[in-house]
Structures are given as C-alpha cells and as structure tokens.
C-alpha cells in the first residue's frame, strides 16, 4: 500500500510540474508582459527597466529554471501589477469561490444521485424521461447560456434574485444554481446508467432469489456496486472546487478565484496565473488520488490486484 501511495504521489508531482511548465510556455508565447502591463505607449526606458527588474531579459531557459526553483521553494512571487504576494492574492479569493462551489457540489450530489437512481429503478417512466431530458439539456448547455437564462428569468423578468455581485446570500443563489444544475444532470445520467448496468447483473437476481426485499437489494447490493463509477465523476467535481467557477464568476461578477484568473490572464500577470494553476492542478491531483484510494476500498477486486 505504501509503495502504491508513493508511486501515485510521484505521479501527481510530475503532473503538477507539467501543468506549471505548460502555463509558463503558453503565457510566454502569447505576449510580452512588459508591453501589456505598462501599455505599448510607455517610454522604451520604462519598458527596459521593467524587463530588467522582472528578469525578462534573461534567456528563456534561465527564466524557466528560476521560476521552477522558486515554485519548489514555495515562493510563487508577487503580482506584477501591484506587487502583492501572489499567494495572498489568490488565498483571499478562495472563500468567495467556495461559497459558490460547495453548495453547488451539494446540489449536484443531493439532486443528481437520487434522480439517477430513481430514473434507473423506474426505467421508461415519465420521471425517467424527464430526468433524461434534463440530463441532456444540462449536459449540452454551456454554463454561460444557462446562467444568462437564469438571470433573464429570475432576475430580469421575475426580479426575485439580484443578477450579480456578492452582497447577500441572495446574490449566491443564481450562480450556485447555474453551477449545480448542470453538474446534477451529468451525475444523474452517470448514476442512472451505472445503476442500470448493475441491476442487470446476475448477482442482483441472486439477491432477489434468496428473498432479500427489493428496497434492500437496491440499497445493499446494487448501489454499492454502482457507486464505483459514480465516485469517479464526484471526484472530478471535487477536484474543480477551486476553479470550476471561472465562467460563472465572471458572469455574475463574483469576486472569486475564477474571476481573478480571467483578469490575471488578460494582464499577463504571470505569478498570479501560475499560482492559480498550481492550486487547480493540486486539487485535481489530490482528488484523483483520493478516488483511487476510495476505489480500493469500494472494490475488493482491486485490492488484491489483477489476476492474469
């Protein structure tokens, strides 16, 4: 088990390193930070000085090395824009994002999984059809379309909720719904198909044949097996807790990590972008690791390893 963990952690570190490198390459290729931050009309001396002070004159591999070593030391640098520590800038936005993503995650799980189970148990019923149509809509509709639609209905026409900002809990409702409904639809779809697959298995018939009441067959035999694929999706959703709200935060003017990311990219504020990417990749990698460990717990066949 220890060896397994060590292996997975090493793999996770490599993933994070690749993400960080990728961020460096993309941001450097896509424009000169000096020109963007100082504006191209600035005097050439100012630009040169800016470049010198940020080390932008050095050969690219030196910049990369410096950047990489700094990250390993935990030094993510300061924002090029206002000189604040990048970590602090990002950290201060995290609570706002979690205010949206955690309730949204609860909606996804609390709505999606029961709806999927119900649909599977009542296959081809009216409710199954509604769930499936809802799932397809939620699956295919981009979150900005859904968000705009919700704003149009509940803010503009009905006037029940505000359309943007972060002043009261009322402000959180539309962004949380936008995030949660789409995810719930995805989860409902996965849960339904996982349940249908499991309900067709011979061991479900065996459980019924030995006299286990149907509700207990579903709860005790079918769901634990169906939960194995569902866990993957939930893990993915947990992994996007910090960064899954980029579009929604921008749409609702919510001052979270996602909005910071958008503005930092636009400004080529490398340190902040890198810091956010690091945060995203680490949460993703950690949740993947958790899913793997959970798999071993849920499925004994994985614990003893593959027979050939």
């Amino acid at each position, binding site marked *: 088990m220890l060896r397994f963990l060590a292996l997975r952690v090493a793999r996770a570190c490599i993933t994070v390193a690749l993400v960080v490198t990728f961020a460096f390459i993309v941001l450097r290729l896509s424009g000169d930070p000096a020109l963007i931050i100082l504006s191209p009309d600035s005097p050439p001396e100012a630009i040169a000085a800016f470049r010198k002070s940020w080390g932008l004159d050095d050969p690219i591999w030196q910049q990369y090395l410096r950047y990489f070593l700094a990250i390993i030391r935990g030094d993510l640098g300061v924002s090029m824009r206002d000189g604040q520590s990048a970590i602090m800038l990002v950290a201060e936005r995290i609570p706002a994002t979690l205010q949206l993503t955690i309730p949204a995650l609860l909606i996804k799980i609390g709505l999606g999984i029961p709806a999927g189970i119900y649909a599977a148990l009542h296959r081809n019923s009216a409710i199954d059809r509604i769930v499936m149509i809802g799932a397809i809509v939620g699956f295919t509709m981009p979150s900005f379309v859904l968000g705009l639609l919700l704003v149009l209905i509940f803010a503009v026409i009905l006037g029940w909720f505000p359309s943007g900002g972060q002043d009261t809990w009322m402000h959180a409702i539309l962004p949380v719904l936008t995030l949660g409904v789409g995810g719930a639809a995805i989860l409902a779809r996965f849960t339904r198909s996982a349940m249908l697959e499991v309900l067709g298995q011979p061991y479900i018939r065996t459980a019924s*044949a*030995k006299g286990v009441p149907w509700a207990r067959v579903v709860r005790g035999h079918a769901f634990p097996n169906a939960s194995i694929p569902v866990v993957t999706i939930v893990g993915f959703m947990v992994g996007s807790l910090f960064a899954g709200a980029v579009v929604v935060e921008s749409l609702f003017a919510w001052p979270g990590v996602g909005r910071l990311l958008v503005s930092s990219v636009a400004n080529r504020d490398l340190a902040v972008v890198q810091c956010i990417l690091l945060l995203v990749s680490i949460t993703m990698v950690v949740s993947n690791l958790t899913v793997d460990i959970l798999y071993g717990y849920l499925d004994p*066949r994985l614990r003893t390893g593959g027979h050939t």
Partner: protein
Amino acid sequence: MSLVEITGLTVAFDGVRVLHGIDLTIGKGEAVGLVGESGCGKSVTWLAALGLLPQKARIGGRVMMEGADLLTMPRSEIEKVRGARIAMIFQDPSSALNPIIRVGRQIEEAIALHRGLTGASVRAEAKRLLDLVGIPDASRRLDNYPHEFSGGQNQRVMIAMALAGNPDLLVADEPTTALDATIQAQILDLIVRLRNETGLALVFISHDLGAVSQVCERACVMYAGRIIESGPTAELFRQPRHPYTNGLFEALPRLDGPRRRFVPIEGTVPDPRHMPAGCAFSPRCRSARENCHHTQPALATLSGTRQIACLHPLSDSPASERQRDFAVA
C-alpha cells in the same frame, strides 16, 4: 404430496409468447429434471414462478404452493417464499455472487432473513453451511470475496446460501454448465448428497441429459416453450417416444461403442416471433405427417406416469443401443 403445482403457466415478452402453458407438479422431496436446448423456456418457467423476471414480462396461469398462488401474491409475500421455501442457484456462479461483499456476509444475509438468528449464531451457521458444502477452512474463508474463490467453490458458496433458509425446494439452473468436467462431477455429487441428507426437493434445469439422468427420478423435456414429454428418467431415456427427445439422444455423442458420425436434428429451433403452425417441432421432425403441421398436440398421458405431446409418437419397440446401457444402470 405435491409441493408446488404449476398450471397453465404462460410468459410473454413484448407481446411475444415464450412459454405456452406449462403444467408441472413437483412432489415433496422429488427430483425433477427440466431438459431442453437454449430458449426452450426451462429457466423462464422458474424465474416466472418466483417473480424474478423483468417487469415487462406478462405472466399467466397459476403456481400453487400450500394453497397460495405465488403469481398473485404481493411482493412482500413472495419475498418470504424466495430463499425460505424455494431457493434457486444459477449457471455462472462467479457472476451470481456480489463481487464487493464478503461471501460470509452474503450467506449470513440469507440466514438472518429466514431463520431469525442474530449475532454470533448467524456466523456459526454460515460456517456450518460452508463446511457442509465442502469448502475447506470455512471459518477463514467466510471473510473472502467471490473473486478469491474458483468457479467450483463459488457454486458451493451459492449452494450454501441456498440452503441457508432451509428451503423445501432447490431450483438449480444449469449449475454445472460453466464448470470444468472434474468440477462438474464434484458439484453433481454434492447436490445428490445434500438431497439425500436433507430430503429437499430438486428441480434440475439442464441441457445435459447425462447429468439429469444421474440426479433426477423424473424428467420433462421442453421444446419451444412447451413440455413435450415427461416421465421417469430411466424409462424416458431408455425409450423416448417423442421424436424430439429421441433426436436429442441421437445427437448426443457417446463415450463408448464405435466412433460414429453424429446424428443431428436438422434445422433450427423456431423463432418465438414466428412459430410454425401446429406442432412447433413439425418442421424438423422426421416422423411428421400432414396433421402435425396444423394441429397442436396437447400433453397427454401415454401410460402410467408418462406423458407426451405428439400426434404420432415413436413406437415402443426397443431402441436397441440405449436399452443395453440402461440394463447396467
């Protein structure tokens, strides 16, 4: 004394009939074989009787047990019959056990449901059952998962689970088909031994005529959703009177005597959506005559305990080769 009495059982899926009225009585402690090729309805009969078919199945007829009809019982009632009065085991034991639950817990679940035992006595009973079906080192093995057992051992676990509720009838649906030859022999031996020890009635569903003849006193041959011949195993196998039963025996290669060319039944089993008129076997039957193609023969008593559904049964002149073999048995 009859234990279960099936009358006029019909099953249809999406408007297509697959079972056309089965009449079958199982006596207390009796072992009855249901023989036939895939799709003949031998498994569907018992899945229907126990309410284990998918909901879209349309079921007709009656399945009586102690004055109650299993088909019209509320779900909570039939759930009390399953496992407690009638237990069932299936073809592929490795997929018939829940892969993520320890086998001990799967057996204990059945014990707790039907025997009202709790705590340590459930565990002790599970161990006793595992011992009974011949799994060595039972107390340790209770904590293993199905994938840690071989196919044959999983079938033993299934049998232990089936015995947990002290049923009156065990329905074994092709219990040895998925297993290796030497393991098949072990499982057949176990089933026969348990039957002798517990007096349990047995329905043995199989396409393997040899296995049926070794385990059952009585056998019913099914074709295209009907019982077409039944009788005491030895008699039936010594002298099949229905051309299909006879064809099955002829088609069966032998392990003794000269090596010979196989004798197939020409044609294929009819599609339930396009059943031939008259006797379902008539298009493949070598003794079919004109009326076979439009008259459906009913299952009628031929003599004593033998029944047959055929307008032109084969004569009872000795079927030379087989008779010799049965003289030994």
